[in-house]
């Protein structure tokens, strides 16, 4: 067996050498090698899992490092400054320098903090974002855990991250951290609903909760689910950006209000872990969007030339760019506004979307008309429905603050309007309202 492993470089060459670019072939070849060498069945099983885990963990490790640089550079461009450019070529080593600095710093823990929870929280925050990637298909045959309930697994993992944030903030025993934690729980309770409802429409169309099946549905029908489900995409994108704690919904850390929120007491590498986990979670959500709405590893005919995992990563970063873009542009909501946005806008719209999808799916199955006929029709209907719903909701539900114009009035001279009689002003009023009117 060992001899066979040593001969691996030659044995790995499959029919065509370039098939190795599809990493599943590479791992498949390694597993074949083990089987051929007479390795026991459980060894294949363990090695296969290890290989997949290694791939995902190394991917996410690289992501955590490089995304700090990407995010800071992209936002820097948006803010008409350079971003990190001192350490290494183009500042590429800046995240490494940051990590070294964070590791050198003392990890402080408040005396009143709950030690166990305080320590576990950053780890518990990081793990779900990584675990979530296990069910993502990175290529046609390239998925670590081919779960039939992949979507449910995604929901479970994305909720866990919010729970970790909550215990971290609660365990710090700090008032600001407590605000952050409470906001996280409010947002978790609220935003899980539109997230689940929006992905439900996708599941109904694809007919499966298996993410590979969802990608295959898109490949078979030659479309991206974002075309069939634009409303669900918008809802999922906005809700998940709320769950990710990114501007415009970064209420849990809200630096300008509660000074960092749940991670206000964290320092050193524990803080670094939070920081990295935020990027990891952002990538995880981008991955879900890329897989579910943007076709995953499938990209028309291109996926026959370019390896699937490259296409997935390309799509992930396209989505991630939009996340950076919103972060660089928008201010933050207030907590009541954000919750109202979920309950009054996104949840009802998601329910309407599901009803529509249910009707369409039933029509498709009952009539048996061809997908080539029905799907373009559905794309048109759902697109129009999205536009109509959004416009209608804006008409009905728009906030009532717009009774004043956006711009101030202009006066050429002093004008002090006559005020109500002093009695209505209150006990601190001066003897008479100063009705000065000077002309200039």
């Amino acid at each position, binding site marked *: 067996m060992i001899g066979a492993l040593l001969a691996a470089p030659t044995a790995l060459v499959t029919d065509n050498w370039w098939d190795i670019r599809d990493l599943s072939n590479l791992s498949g070849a390694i597993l074949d090698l083990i089987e051929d060498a007479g390795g026991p069945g459980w060894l294949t099983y363990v090695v296969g899992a290890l290989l997949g885990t290694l791939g995902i963990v190394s991917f996410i490790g690289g992501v955590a490092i490089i995304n700090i640089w990407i995010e800071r550079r992209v*936002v820097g461009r948006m803010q008409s400054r350079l971003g990190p450019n001192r350490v290494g070529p183009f500042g590429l080593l800046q995240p490494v320098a940051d990590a070294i600095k964070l590791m050198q710093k003392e990890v402080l823990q408040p005396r009143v903090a709950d030690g166990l929870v305080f320590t576990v929280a950053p780890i518990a925050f990081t793990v779900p974002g990584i675990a979530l990637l296990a069910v993502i298909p990175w290529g046609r045959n390239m998925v670590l855990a081919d779960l039939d309930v992949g979507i449910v697994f995604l929901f479970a993992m994305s909720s866990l991250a919010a729970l970790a944030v909550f215990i971290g903030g609660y365990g710090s025993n700090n008032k600001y951290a407590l605000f952050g934690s409470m906001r996280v729980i409010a947002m978790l309770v609220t935003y899980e609903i539109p997230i689940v409802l929006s992905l439900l429409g996708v599941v109904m169309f694809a007919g499966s909760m298996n993410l590979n099946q969802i990608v295959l549905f898109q490949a078979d029908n030659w479309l991206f689910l974002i075309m069939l489900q634009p409303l669900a995409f918008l809802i999922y994108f906005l809700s998940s950006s709320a769950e990710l704690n990114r501007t415009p919904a970064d209420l849990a850390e*809200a630096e300008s209000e*509660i000074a960092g929120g749940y991670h206000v007491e964290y320092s050193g590498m524990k803080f670094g872990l939070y920081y990295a986990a935020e990027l990891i979670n952002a990538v995880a959500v981008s991955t879900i969007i890329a897989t579910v709405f943007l076709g995953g590893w499938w990209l028309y005919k291109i996926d026959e030339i370019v390896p699937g995992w490259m296409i997935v990563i390309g799509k992930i970063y396209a989505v991630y760019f939009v996340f950076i873009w919103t972060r660089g*542009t928008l201010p*933050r909501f207030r907590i009541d506004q954000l919750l109202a946005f979920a309950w009054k806008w996104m949840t009802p719209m998601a329910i309407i979307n599901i009803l529509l999808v249910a009707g369409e799916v039933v029509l498709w199955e009952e009539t048996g008309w061809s997908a080539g006929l029905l799907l373009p029709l559905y794309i048109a209907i759902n697109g129009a429905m999205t536009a109509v719903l959004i416009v209608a909701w804006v008409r009905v539900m728009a*906030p009532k603050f717009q009774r004043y114009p956006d711009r101030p009035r202009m006066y050429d001279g*002093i004008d*002090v309007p006559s005020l109500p009689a002093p009695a209505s*002003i*209150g006990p601190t009023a001066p003897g008479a309202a100063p009705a000065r009117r000077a002309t200039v």
Partner: protein
Amino acid sequence: MAIKSDLVEVNIGPQHPSTHGVFRMVAIIDGERIVDVKMVVGYLHRSMEKLAEERTYTQNIPFTDRMDYLAAMTGNLGYVLSVEKLAGVEVPERAQYLRTIFAELQRIASHEMATGAFINDCGAWQTPVMWCFRDREKVLDLFEMVCGARITTNYMRIGGVAFDIPDEFLPALDRLINDDLPRRFEELEQLIVGNEIILMRARDVGIVTPELAINASLSGPMIRSAGIAWDIRKADPYCVYDRVNFDIPVGYNGDSYDRMVIRIEEMKQSLRIIRQCMSDLPAGPHKVDVPLALRPPAGEAYSRVESPKGELGFYVVSDGSSAPYRWHVRPPSLINLTVLREMTVGQTIADAIVTLGSIDINVGEVDR
């Protein structure tokens, strides 16, 4: 709707990203709703008013830089105006125009800072504040060109200004106010004016009623947001403000959003004033000779200018010696801050931060 919970006391500041310095706000909160606010000021107290009694009138000018360090020029101007009033110094025409130009440039710089910081308080992740800083830097470059300093300019002198402008100043100013800044203001407005989230965050937040504004003697954008067109430049003109045309932007509702757009509009009006001053700028001396140890006759004088924050007044009492007998400053930041409690009680913490940002305090000036 209202679920009562235990009242919690939260210290917002003195070390907080959004208190703009070392201002402390002790908020009693019920959930996230503010029940009561206590303001604690004085962390940056440097006893300038007392120190000034030991120094000559000219030596006191740098103190005014360090009061409102985001608007040093208008601080300088207010102080030298009061001493000139006390000593009866006539200021040459050219100096008057230069003072107006620099006061308005300073207004642009200060309002840029205020607007950017306000949007940051609303939760934007640094983009507007970076854009505003970029534009402010351009203005500070001009300050550096003329007096060597960017922030603490120390440019105005009793009887004029310290230096005449260099030859390259006017072309640079022309480029800035006719090309760069109008374009940048356009960009900034596209980003923030009428932005839905900013409207949601700032409209109807931190309302000042006209009655409250007058009773609390507010000034600057605070009183103008309440719908009262009150501007010292119009009401009690100094320098050459009675010779230039400009409008006062006035808000509707007295809320934070009004104050933000008023500041943006005021920056545009400042450009208008600077354009007129540039075309009218006369030749002549930039300064009259005043003895370094000026001894004004015994008496008192109060003069006020419209600083970017509001009415900045200087009250100087002379006993005939070379140092003021008493020097008192009317700091607009402090007086505008006095209504914070009325503005924030009943709002959430997030609103209180937005409200505080819209007041545009400068703790250097609050505490002096």
